[in-house]
């Protein structure tokens, strides 16, 4: 958990425009709360190699 008000340099680094913003391995990101299954799916998604050209 990172409290956005206290760490503005991170807010800028990760372009946080709304909360909650979730970043997984700095690869997968989404804003808003997800139901458990969808959250787990995003965690597993972050394991996949980046596609060419990304």
């Amino acid at each position: 958990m990172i409290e956005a008000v206290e760490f503005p340099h991170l807010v800028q680094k990760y372009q946080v425009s709304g909360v909650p913003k979730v970043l997984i391995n700095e690869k997968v990101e989404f804003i808003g709360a997800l139901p458990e299954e969808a959250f787990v799916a995003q965690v597993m998604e972050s394991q996949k190699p980046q596609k060419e050209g990304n």
Partner: protein
Amino acid sequence: MPILEDKVKEQVRGDLSKLTEEVKLIFFTQELECQFCQQTHQLLEEVSILSDKVRLIIYNFVLDKDKAKKYDINKIPATVVEGKVDYGIRFYGLPAGYEFPTLVESIIDVSRGTTDLSAQSKKTIVTLSQPIHIQIFTTPS
């Protein structure tokens, strides 16, 4: 002036009364505490008083470099919620507002050594082959 209202304290005292294993709140701050470090320090003190199973340990981010390195801390205020195991749970900044119940729940989960995730979720997560770093940005309200 206390941060937690009396009724919140009683609620938390009740929630934490079920703790079986000890939980450490490991707090990193600095000598001259910034406003948020001071408030976080006070909040953690108030929480730790509510249960004899919750122990507050305070480190100086600058002087206790070995501890900061051990817990991979690079910004403060930082709170580690550790049980028998360090599960990698870190709160950076003051855990106020909506994050306060999250802090209390993490203390309970860490004490239990388990979570309320579904069996399916747990089965899936256990197949992870790479380290996962989850960062969640929040605001107090």
